[in-house]
């Protein structure tokens, strides 16, 4: 069943997901939503890896996906921690309100 879907469909889907994620990072102003967009980009990459891995019949891509998942989780943890820290100074999640640095 799954092998019947051409590789290009997967690549197209992941490209669309990646673009939506990248667009979200650039457009949205809520730090948590930006974080979610970055996660979306990472998962688009995971899809590409898995699609290529199945197409090339090589396991490397799948191993890479493991690593990406772990790193993505760690990034979420650290990102949320930084946001919580910042929240103690200022009740906001909107990145436009974090503007103490200018020069």
């Amino acid at each position, binding site marked *: *069943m799954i092998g019947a879907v051409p590789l290009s469909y997967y690549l197209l889907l992941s490209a669309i997901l990646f673009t939506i994620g990248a667009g979200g990072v650039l457009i949205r102003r809520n730090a948590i939503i930006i974080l979610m967009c970055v996660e979306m980009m990472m998962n688009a990459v995971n899809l590409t890896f898995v699609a290529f891995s199945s197409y090339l019949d090589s396991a490397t891509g799948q191993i890479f996906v493991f690593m990406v998942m772990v790193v993505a989780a760690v990034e*979420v943890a650290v990102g949320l921690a930084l*946001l919580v820290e910042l929240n103690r100074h200022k009740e906001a999640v909107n990145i436009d309100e974090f503007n103490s640095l200018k020069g």
Partner: protein
Amino acid sequence: MPTDYIPVLLFLGVTFTLSVVAVGLPHIPFINPLRPNKAKSEVVESGKLAYGDAKRKIPIQYYTTAMLFILFDIEVLFFYPWAVVFWELRWYGIMAMSVFTLLLVIGFAYEWRKGAMEWD
């Protein structure tokens, strides 16, 4: 082949029809004569009376717990593949995973000691 997806399409069609029927039926006066009263229009939440707004803010400390959960949740990712080939890897795998677990335990002890587990 696209023909492989006919069952999916059928399934989607059935789902759509059923949901339209289920949502639409109560709006036909013949089947459902509307006689509203106070108790009837209240929100049902397992016998408890509803209070406050649905869009409540979650305390920010919750994130700390969520964070710690993520870390220990994702570590299992590495244990599963090991479990699959546990017998083939023998002591080699056990040694490698011991080092991995040791590092995790040190991190765990550190966060415990630093008071990350304390909920105030």
